[in-house]
């Protein structure tokens, strides 16, 4: 990839370390938590990482207002309380928040559409950081632009805080279909493909050759049940982020344990039936087709 800032065709050490941590998180569940108690419940249930944020997306949606990076003390407390990686969100384009999160020593930064964007045109130059970034994407072009900016992990965007998996599915299919299409093109067609995708040519060539993204691809947004986790993983996601889906469910600990099992045994319907039998009600959802387009979080990102 000609995207590592030094013109070399292969990932540099910095990117290898960043995507290396993303590799370690595969086959797992990253859970949104808003305090130390929830972080401990998530770790105990088998989360591979926690995302520290002040309000889960469904509360952000309900309360409205400007949503920003979490308070540093809350992030520090969670980092001290658990042994697994801790992620935190900054606003799209808000590189100062990202600098602060890096100085706190978080393990991953999520440049997230769930928070209110700070820049309506530009994302963060993620090559400028040592901490790895994860970014959302709704299609292949958006994913490759974020990778071009230095993201070490992509999470396909569902509609956060909705409990409705439909958009996670739509966007995951958009990305995997887009990859398959690229692999069918002749070499002399790839530059126009890059132009149409709005994505860096070198990364387009690499994806066409390898038939996969150059960084891990996880799924996020609207995943509320073990069956949802299985669905997105069978469609090609390598791990799942569960936001409101855990701590807005009837019994968060058992719900969390069940989704952890589902992420691993996503191809085993007998085990999925077992774990689905052991949980209470999932989070109350919002049918996303009933939302006004101005209420959608997923359309943030350029």
């Amino acid at each position: 990839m000609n995207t590592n800032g030094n013109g070399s065709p292969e990932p540099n050490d910095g990117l290898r370390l960043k995507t290396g941590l993303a590799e370690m998180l595969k086959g797992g569940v990253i859970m949104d938590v808003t305090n130390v108690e929830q972080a401990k419940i998530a770790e105990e249930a088998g989360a591979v990482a926690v995302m520290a944020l002040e309000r889960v997306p469904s509360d952000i949606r309900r309360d409205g207002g400007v949503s920003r990076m979490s308070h540093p003390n809350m992030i520090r407390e969670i980092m001290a309380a658990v042994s697994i990686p801790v992620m935190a969100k900054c606003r799209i384009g808000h590189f100062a928040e990202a600098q602060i999160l890096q100085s706190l020593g978080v393990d991953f930064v999520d440049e997230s559409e769930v928070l209110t964007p700070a820049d309506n045109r530009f994302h963060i130059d993620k090559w400028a950081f040592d901490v790895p970034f994860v970014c959302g994407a709704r299609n292949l072009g958006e994913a490759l632009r974020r990778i071009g900016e230095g993201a070490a992990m992509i999470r396909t965007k569902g509609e956060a805080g909705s409990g409705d998996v439909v958009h996670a599915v739509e966007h995951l299919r958009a990305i995997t279909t887009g990859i398959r299409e690229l692999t069918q093109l002749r070499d002399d067609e790839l530059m126009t493909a890059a132009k149409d995708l709005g994505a860096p040519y070198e990364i387009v060539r690499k994806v066409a050759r390898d038939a996969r993204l150059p960084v891990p691809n996880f799924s996020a947004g609207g995943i509320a049940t073990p069956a949802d986790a299985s669905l997105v993983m069978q469609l090609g996601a390598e791990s799942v982020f569960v936001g409101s889906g855990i701590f807005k469910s009837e019994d968060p600990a058992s719900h969390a344990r069940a989704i952890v099992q589902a992420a691993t045994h996503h191809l085993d319907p007998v085990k999925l039936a077992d774990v689905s039998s052991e949980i209470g009600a999932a989070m109350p959802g919002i049918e996303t087709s009933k939302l006004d387009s101005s209420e959608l979080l997923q359309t943030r990102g350029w």
Partner: protein
Amino acid sequence: MVTRLMTTPRASPTPVSNGSIGVLALQGDFAAHAEALRRLGHQSFEVRDPTQLRDLDGLVIPGGESTTILRHFDRQPEWLRRLTDFARSGRLVFGTCAGLILLARSVQPHQPSLGVLDVTVERNGYGRQLDSSICRGSWTQAEPSNPDIEIVLIRAPRIVSTAAHVEVLAHLDDEPVLVRQNNIFGATFHPELAAGLDVYERVIALGMRLVPQTEA
């Protein structure tokens, strides 16, 4: 007994060049291990059920989160017995990072483990992600063709002590990073993510020689 096949191969069973090696795929970078094994010419299998261990010649326990993998063992306690039996059968077991933690005799801060490799490890002993690094380590018995090795440390565990019968195959500064107790190998780092597969290849070559073939 510590055998030193690394530099003095003795009369031993013909190395198994294409044995089938499983990768524990409960959670972690099992895909990177499967890719490394494929590049080395081995068939590899993703192992998600303990009954799958029966037909394997070797097993890799990948990096990931040890706390998560332990929850899977809790859910299906048969894993503990089957994995311990597998390790005692003499077949290759190779744990990297979280895999090393799961094999270790003792873990700091305390958490359960299989206890088949007599080392004490400290989780996240090299720090958080911002302390992760790629550096050069050394073989304990260096060869001119192989003076040093690439060490990819990601939120890595540190080996704080080893029993006398545990052989240190490689070290970083003065600390062990790759150890061996007969057929059981553990690395604090990620040979599956290295630019070259020299470490991975060496471990497989050493471990697969030990596959019991005494009937022959």
